[in-house]
């Protein structure tokens, strides 16, 4: 493989990895704070792309306004989802809330088919995004280039919120010791809502970038990325945000590496995630950056 082609694949891998990282963060944040795998997270990702789609095509908004609205509405939807499907079950056994998440996922997917229609829609790509930039011998589309940049900015902002603000401190406290956090006077409901909003916003950003990169929208488009990004979060250590980012990149770059190494394997690109999951669960089940922490009774 020539160096130029290798570079091309590397860029694609980093791009895909960024998308996976953005989506994996939502899974890991919600797990960290509620010990819940939000199976509906992939569908929230799907919703963001559709909101952006309709904002541009039906409401004729400029792309930047549409993207902003998609992020805001998706975050709001995340908050509503938590209130409706998860909060009422907070004192129920953990399996109940997991079942609710699966149910919410099916509900959103099928509502999507009902409302948006099952036929694929083409994500409208503003001309600015279709440019192809040539650096040296490598040609990269603008979209592929901005994905890691936008992801990096989003991650920097999230990191600031979590580590340098009062709310972020409260989030870290709640995810470590729910009851002790209550004793600090922390409003648990607010912190949980905020966590869902932040995770959904990350998913929305990921969804919009995904729509730009793979412009075919179907209501079930969130299933495979959702599953893969859940796996990415587990690989990195579920509950650990840095782990989610790491897992996302491992999955993204690995997937592209497989397709690049042999076109015959490209049909198996999705399988890579699952094989990796099995390996990690056998070798280091707490994930690459996860800690062996005993659950406090």
């Amino acid at each position, binding site marked *: 493989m020539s160096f130029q082609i290798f570079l091309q694949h590397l860029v694609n891998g980093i791009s895909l990895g960024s998308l996976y990282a953005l989506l994996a963060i939502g899974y890991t944040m919600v797990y960290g704070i509620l010990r819940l795998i939000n199976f509906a997270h992939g569908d929230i990702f799907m919703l963001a792309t559709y909101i952006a789609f309709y904002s541009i095509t039906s409401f004729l908004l400029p792309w930047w306004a549409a993207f902003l609205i998609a992020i805001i509405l998706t975050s709001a939807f995340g908050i509503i989802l938590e209130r409706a499907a998860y909060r009422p079950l907070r004192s129920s056994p953990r399996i109940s809330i997991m079942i609710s998440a699966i149910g919410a996922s099916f509900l959103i997917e099928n509502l999507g088919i009902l409302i948006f229609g099952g036929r694929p829609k083409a994500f409208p790509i503003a001309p600015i995004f279709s440019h192809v930039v040539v650096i040296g011998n490598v040609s990269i589309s603008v979209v592929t280039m901005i994905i890691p940049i936008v992801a990096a900015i989003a991650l920097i902002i999230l990191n600031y919120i979590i580590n340098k603000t*009062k709310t972020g*401190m*409260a989030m*870290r*406290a709640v995810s*470590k*010791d729910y*009851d*002790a*956090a*209550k*004793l*600090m*006077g*922390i*409003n648990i409901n607010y912190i949980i809502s905020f966590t869902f909003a932040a995770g959904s916003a990350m998913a929305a950003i990921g969804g919009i970038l995904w729509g730009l990169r793979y412009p075919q929208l179907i209501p079930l488009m969130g299933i495979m990325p959702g599953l893969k990004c859940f796996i990415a979060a587990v690989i990195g250590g579920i509950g650990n945000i840095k782990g989610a980012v790491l897992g996302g990149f491992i999955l993204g770059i690995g997937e592209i590496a497989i397709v690049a190494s042999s076109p015959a394997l490209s049909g198996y690109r999705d399988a890579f995630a699952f094989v990796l999951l099995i390996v990690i669960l056998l070798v280091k089940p707490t994930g690459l950056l996860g800690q062996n922490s005993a659950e406090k009774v």
Partner: protein
Amino acid sequence: MLNIKDLHVHYGGIHALTGVSIDIPQNKIVTLIGANGAGKSSTLKSIMGLAKASNGSIKFNGEELVGKPTTQIVTKGIVLVPEGRRIFPNMTVEENLFLGAYTRRDKDGINKDLKWVYELFPRLKERIWQKGGTLSGGEQQMLAVARGLMTKPKLMMMDEPSLGLAPLIVKDIFSIIKEIHKNGVTILLIEQNAKAALEVADYGYVLETGAIVLEGPGKDLLSNDDVKKAYLGEHK
């Protein structure tokens, strides 16, 4: 300051507290002693709003606390230093202290209290950037108390502060309790170490299977025969 009248608490079918009445006057140290499962922690939990009172009233300076959410109760000036310390292991000493002050908005007051707390606990000052989980048991207990102080409480409730600690450290903790009390904080102390608790307390209540069986000034309870037999060890 705090008046509990006829408090009943149920955990499912279990009647944990069967009509408990306790008065905690301002600026006093009151202790609640009793065996495991007597209902001491349940009393504290219901004051904090962590356990629902099925009957009875808890009045703080005349205001009813039953039914109010924990966040409100904390802002009224009541803090609980929980059993087992429950400090945040993944956060530094200083972050733990700032979390104690979470509900406060007065930046200057918070910094002043931070300075005071570091004077009270010089061991903590040496370890400002250490993660809570790496502290020893005694240091964690100090952190838990310091964190409680950062809330600027009027009433500080402590659940078994001496549990699992070496006798020398226990001495330190109790002298700190006295020091805090001198600074105007009312204290409700729950302890299995009945001797140390009664020595420092102004008033004491003895709890047995959900009901108060004895009460009186600390010194009286110390010399009471029944208390001696049950909680202070048979005189050899």
